[in-house]
C-alpha cells in the first residue's frame, strides 16, 4: 500500500536526515522503525504524511503520489493517515471531547467547524472512540488534567476519528512507563489486527519490537541499515544499528 | 455528583426572582450565579446612571433570563445571551458617553491635513548663519506732528521717507549699511509685538536696500481704535549662512526638555528606590506577620502603598505644583512618591517569594530580625530589586514626558506650550525626540535586565 522511493531529506541547516531511503509496506503490516536518536525516524514518518517536504524521492500511498499532491488533495490523503506522537500533542487547554473531535476536522464542513460546531453524530462517534479506549469518563476534563497514558489514549481516539487506513506512530510510548507502554501498544495492535489498519511505528525497546512488530527497519544517520523480521535482530544487528558505544545500555534492553 | 443534595427548585426560582444569581448559588452553580449577579447588578447600575428608560430593557432581560436559566437549563449554559446583552449595553452607552465618533476623526483629519503635514516638518537644527539687523519706529496712522522714522545703530540705518504711514499709503523704506547684493527681510511689528506684514527685497552693491511697501489695514487689527496714532516698528534684517548647522530655538528647548526629563526620571527612580526598600520589608507578609504589632504595621503599610499607587503621578504633580510652584522639582516629588509606592509593592512581592530555608537557618543561630534580613534575605533579593528598579526607571522616563503638562518640568512642559501655541513643527519634533530617547533607553534597560536574570 505504501511505497517509499529514494527518499532524501536535507534540512536547511545542511543536516542530511534521510539519505536515499526506499522500502515498501503492504496492507496490514506492523512495521517498526528503529534507530538511534537523530537517525531520522521522526523525519521519515513526517515525510510520509508531508508534515515535512522531502528534498528528493517519492512517497506513494495506494497509487497516489503523496509528494506531488497539495492543497485539498493532500488534506484528503492526510485524513486517511492517523498520527500518534511521543508527546501526545493534545491541545492542552481544550477538553478531551474537543481534542478527539479535532481528528474529524478533515471530514467536516470547514465553515461550521471553524465556528466551533460539531454535528451530534460526530460527537457520538467521538464518545464511541473514547469508550473503546475506556476513557469516556474523562470526556469533559481538560486535556492537561490527564495522566500521560490517558493523554496518549486520547491521542489514539483522535486518530480513530479519522478512520485511518494507515497509522504513523512516532515513539508513542517513549514518555510512558513500561506497563503503560504495553497497554498503549496493545491498542495499536488491536487496531492493526481487528481494523486491518497498517501501522508504522518508531520504537526504542527491543522487547516491544519483538512482541508487536511484523517487520523491522533500522536506520542509522538516515540510511537504511537493516530490514527484516523482528526475530532476525540479535546483539550484532543491534550493535550495528545503535553503534558500538551504546552497546552496553542497549544490550541490557535486549534481555 | 448525583448524591449532592440539590436545593428545592421552586425555592431557587424564588430566590433568583428576588436577587438574580442567588438561586443558582443555592443550586451550587456558583460560577453562573455570580456571573448572573454581576451582569445584572452592573447593567442595572449603569442604566440607572445613564437614565434613558429604553436601556432598562437590558437588565430586565438579564433578570428574566436568569429565572429561565434556573427553571430550564440543566447546566448553566445560558450565559452567552446575557453576556451579549451586557456587551451591547456597555458599548452602546459607552460609545455615547465617550462621544465616540470615528467619522469626526476622518472628517477632521482632512481638514487638519495642513497641521499634520506640519508635524512632519521637523525643526531641530538650522543652518548656521550670521545676521545683520536694524529697525525704525514709525507712527501709524499719521498724527499732525509725526516723529521722524529714522534709526541708526551699529552702522546700520533704517528710515522711512514718508516719516509716517496711513493705511493704503505706499511708503518707501530705506536701509543702509547692509551686506551688498543680499536678500533682505522686512518685518512690520505692531505695537503689541505681533507680526503684521513681512516682505523681502535685495540690497544693491553698496549695501543699500530700498522697498516700496503698501501699508495694509491688517497692521491695525490689534489696535482698539485704528484711528489713534501708535508707534509701530519696521525691522530690516539680513542673514547669510556661514556653513555648518546649529540647533534651532525649538531644538534647543527640546534638548533642554529631554535633559530635564531624563534627570527627573533618574532622580525620582533612585530616591524612590531608596525609600521603597524599607517599605518593601514592612509590606512583606513573611517577615511581618509574626506578631500582632508588626501585623498591624504590615497592614497599614500595604494599604498606604495601594492607595498611593492608585493615584497617577500626574495627579500628584498638580498638587505638588500648587504647593511648591512650577518647575521640575514638584514633578520630581510626585514621581518619587509614586515610585516609592509602586516599587515598595514590587519589592515586597520579591521578599515574599524568597526561599525560607536560609531564613530558618540564620534564625536558628539566634540572629535577630535585622540580622536575618541582612544575611538571609538581602543576598537573595538584590538582583531582583535591581531589575525592578531599572524597569521602573523605564516607566519613569515615560511618565516624566507628561509630568510637564501640569507644570512639573521636562519635555512635556515645552510640548504643552507648543500645543497651546499650535506650533505644529515643534510638536512634531518633540514627538520624534521622545520616541528616539525612549526607544533607546528601553533597549538598553531590557539588555541590562536580561543580564541580571
Amino acid at each position, binding site marked *: 500500500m505504501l511505497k517509499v522511493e529514494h527518499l532524501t531529506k536535507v534540512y536547511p541547516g545542511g543536516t542530511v536526515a534521510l539519505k536515499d531511503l526506499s522500502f515498501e509496506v503492504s496492507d496490514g503490516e506492523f512495521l517498526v522503525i528503529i534507530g538511534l536518536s537523530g537517525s531520522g525516524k521522526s523525519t521519515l514518518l*513526517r515525510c510520509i504524511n508531508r508534515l515535512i517536504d522531502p528534498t528528493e524521492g517519492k512517497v506513494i500511498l495506494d497509487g497516489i503520489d503523496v509528494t506531488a499532491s497539495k492543497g485539498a488533495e493532500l*488534506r484528503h490523503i*492526510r485524513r*486517511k493517515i*492517523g*498520527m500518534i*506522537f511521543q508527546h501526545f500533542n*493534545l*491541545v*492542552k*487547554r481544550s477538553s478531551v471531547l474537543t481534542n478527539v473531535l*479535532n*481528528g474529524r*476536522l*478533515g*471530514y467536516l464542513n470547514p465553515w461550521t467547524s*471553524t465556528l466551533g460546531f460539531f454535528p451530534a453524530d460526530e460527537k457520538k462517534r467521538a464518545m464511541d472512540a473514547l469508550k473503546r479506549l475506556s476513557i469516556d469518563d474523562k470526556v469533559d476534563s481538560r486535556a492537561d488534567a490527564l495522566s500521560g497514558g490517558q493523554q496518549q489514549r486520547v491521542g489514539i481516539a483522535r486518530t480513530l*476519528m*479519522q478512520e485511518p487506513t494507515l497509522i504513523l506512530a512516532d515513539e508513542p510510548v517513549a514518555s510512558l512507563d513500561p506497563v503503560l507502554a504495553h497497554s498503549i501498544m496493545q491498542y495499536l495492535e488491536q487496531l492493526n489486527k481487528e481494523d486491518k489498519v497498517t501501522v508504522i511505528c518508531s520504537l526504542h525497546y527491543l522487547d516491544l519490537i519483538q512482541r508487536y512488530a511484523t517487520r523491522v527497519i533500522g536506520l542509522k544517520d538516515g540510511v537504511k541499515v537493516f530490514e527484516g523480521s523482528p526475530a532476525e535482530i540479535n546483539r550484532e544487528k543491534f550493535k550495528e544499528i545503535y553503534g558500538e558505544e551504546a552497546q552496553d545500555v542497549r544490550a541490557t534492553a535486549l534481555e | 455528583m448525583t448524591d449532592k443534595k440539590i436545593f428545592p427548585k421552586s425555592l431557587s426560582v424564588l430566590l433568583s426572582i428576588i436577587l438574580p444569581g442567588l438561586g443558582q448559588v443555592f443550586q451550587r452553580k456558583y460560577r453562573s450565579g455570580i456571573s448572573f449577579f454581576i451582569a445584572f447588578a452592573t447593567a442595572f447600575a449603569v442604566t440607572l446612571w445613564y437614565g434613558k428608560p429604553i436601556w432598562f430593557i437590558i437588565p430586565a432581560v438579564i433578570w428574566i433570563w436568569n429565572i429561565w436559566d434556573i427553571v430550564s437549563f440543566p447546566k448553566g449554559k445560558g450565559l452567552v445571551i446575557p453576556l451579549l446583552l451586557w456587551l451591547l449595553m456597555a*458599548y452602546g452607552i*459607552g*460609545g455615547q458617553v*465617550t*462621544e465616540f*465618533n470615528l467619522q*469626526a*476623526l476622518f472628517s477632521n483629519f482632512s481638514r487638519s491635513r495642513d*497641521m499634520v503635514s506640519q508635524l512632519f516638518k521637523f525643526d531641530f537644527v538650522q543652518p548656521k548663519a550670521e545676521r545683520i539687523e536694524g529697525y525704525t519706529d514709525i507712527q501709524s496712522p499719521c498724527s499732525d506732528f509725526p516723529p521722524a522714522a529714522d534709526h541708526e545703530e551699529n552702522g546700520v540705518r533704517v528710515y522711512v521717507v514718508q516719516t509716517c504711514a496711513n493705511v493704503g499709503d505706499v511708503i518707501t523704506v530705506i536701509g543702509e549699511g547692509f551686506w551688498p547684493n543680499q536678500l533682505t527681510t522686512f518685518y512690520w511689528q505692531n505695537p503689541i509685538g505681533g507680526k503684521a506684514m513681512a516682505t523681502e527685497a535685495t540690497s544693491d552693491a553698496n549695501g543699500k536696500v530700498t522697498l516700496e511697501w503698501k501699508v495694509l489695514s491688517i497692521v491695525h487689527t490689534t489696535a482698539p481704535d485704528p484711528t489713534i496714532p501708535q508707534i509701530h516698528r519696521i525691522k530690516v534684517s539680513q542673514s547669510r549662512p556661514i556653513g555648518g548647522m546649529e540647533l534651532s530655538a525649538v531644538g534647543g528647548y527640546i534638548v533642554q526638555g529631554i*535633559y*530635564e526629563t*531624563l*534627570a527627573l526620571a533618574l*532622580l525620582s527612580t533612585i530616591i524612590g528606590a531608596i525609600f521603597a526598600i524599607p517599605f518593601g520589608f514592612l509590606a512583606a507578609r513573611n517577615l511581618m506577620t509574626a506578631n500582632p504589632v508588626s501585623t498591624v504595621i504590615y497592614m497599614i503599610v500595604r494599604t498606604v502603598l495601594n*492607595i498611593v499607587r*492608585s*493615584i*497617577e503621578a500626574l495627579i500628584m504633580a*498638580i498638587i505638588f505644583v*500648587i*504647593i*511648591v*510652584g512650577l*518647575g*521640575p*522639582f514638584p514633578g*520630581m516629588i510626585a514621581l518619587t512618591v509614586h515610585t516609592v509606592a509602586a516599587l515598595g509593592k514590587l519589592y515586597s512581592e520579591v521578599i515574599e517569594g524568597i526561599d525560607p530555608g536560609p531564613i530558618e537557618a540564620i534564625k536558628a543561630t539566634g540572629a535577630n530580625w535585622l540580622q536575618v534580613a541582612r544575611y538571609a534575605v538581602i543576598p537573595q533579593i538584590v538582583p531582583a530589586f535591581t531589575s525592578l528598579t531599572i524597569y521602573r526607571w523605564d516607566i519613569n522616563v515615560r*511618565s516624566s*514626558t*507628561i509630568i510637564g*503638562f501640569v507644570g512639573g518640568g521636562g519635555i*512635556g512642559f515645552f510640548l*504643552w506650550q507648543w*500645543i497651546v501655541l*499650535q506650533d505644529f513643527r515643534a*510638536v512634531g519634533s518633540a*514627538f520624534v525626540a*521622545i*520616541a528616539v530617547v*525612549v*526607544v533607546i533607553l528601553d533597549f538598553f534597560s531590557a539588555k541590562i535586565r536580561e543580564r541580571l536574570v
Partner: protein
Amino acid sequence: MQKYKPFLKALRKLLITIVLVVLIILSIRVTEPDLVKLVSSFPKAESIMGQLLSPVLFDRESEKITVSQMVPVPCDSVPSLVSADSGPRIILDPPCGSPKDVINLRGVELPPNAEISLRWILPDGGLLSIKNIMTDDKGEIDMPLEIRPITTATDGKAAQISFEVTLPNGKLVVAQTLKDVIDAMFVTIFMALIATTLGTIIAVPLSFLAASNITRRGALGTGVYYLVRAFLNIIRSYEPLVLATIFAMIVGFGSPFAGVIALSITTAASLGKMFSEAVESIDTGPIEAITATGANRIQVVMYAVVPQIIPDFLSFTIYHWDINVRISTIIGFVGGGGIGYLLSQRINTLQYSQAGTALLAIILVVWALDFLSSEIRKSLV
C-alpha cells in the same frame, strides 16, 4: 590574565559608580530640588492635604419653609385666624391694626443668626419688601412694624406678613459633588472599556504579524515582522497622554473621544507586543497533530492555535483594562471628560475638598478593579 580579573571587576564597579554619581549630580542641578522651599511650604501643604482628606460626600438637606401671618387691616376687616403656637412663627402684638399704626412683630423658633427677608404679601398677591434682619442667638426677631395703607384688606382678603427660612431637617443627602464625581467616574470607566476593546481588536492581527514563529518567513515576512515590531515599539514609547494631545488637536479639545483614541492606540501597541510573545511561546505539537488529521489552515489555527492563546489573550486584556482605567483618570487632562478633567478643574479652582471626593473615587475604583481583574485572571490560568 586570571590575576587581573578581580582588579578589572573592581575597576568596572568603580566606573559604574562614578558615572552614576556624575549623572545624579547633573540631575540634581537641573531638577533644582529645593528642600527649604519644601519645608517652608509645609503649612500650605498641610491645609491642602487637610482639605483633600476631607472629601465632600453628603450634605445636610435643608428645607425652605415660608412663615406667614395674616394681618387684618383695619382690625375686624376679616376674622383673624388663630396663629400657630409652635414651630417657626410670627407673633404680632396687637394682632391687627389700622394704617399708620406701629405694632410689635416677633418671630420665634427660627434658626439662630440667620438672615431673613421680611415682606408683605398684599391682598392682591403683590409683594412688598420690608427689610432684611438677622435673628439673634436664640433664633428670634423682635421689631416694630409700621402698617402701610397699601396693606388694607380688600374683598375680605387680608394682607400677610411673611418670610422664608431654610431649616436643616437633619436628613443626609448625596452632595452634588459626589454625583458629579460618580458621573465622571462612569465616563472614565467607559473610556477605558472602549479603548481596551478597540485596542485588543487592533492588537490581535498585529500580534500575529509581530510573532517570529508565524511571520518571520522569507524576505517579505521578515520585513513585515521587523516593521511591525518597530512600529509597536515606537508607539509604546509614548504615554497615552502625549498621543491624546495629537488627537485632541484633530478632533478638538473637550471631548473624551480624543483620549479614547489615544488610549486605544497605546493599548493596541502594548497588547500587540504582549500577545505576540504569547503567540511565540505556543506549543507546536498540536499544530502538527491537527495538520496531520487533514485539517485545513483555518481549522488548524482555530483548533490548535486559538485554544492555546485565548486564556493568555484574555488575561492580558483584562490586565490592560485595569491599567487603562488608571490612565483614563488622567487622560481627561488634555482631552476633556472623565474624572481627570473634573479633578483638574476642582484643583485649579482651589476646591480641594471636592477634589478630595474625586481622589477618593479614583482610589476606590482603581482598587476594586485591581482586585476584580486579578481574581478573574487567576481563574483563567
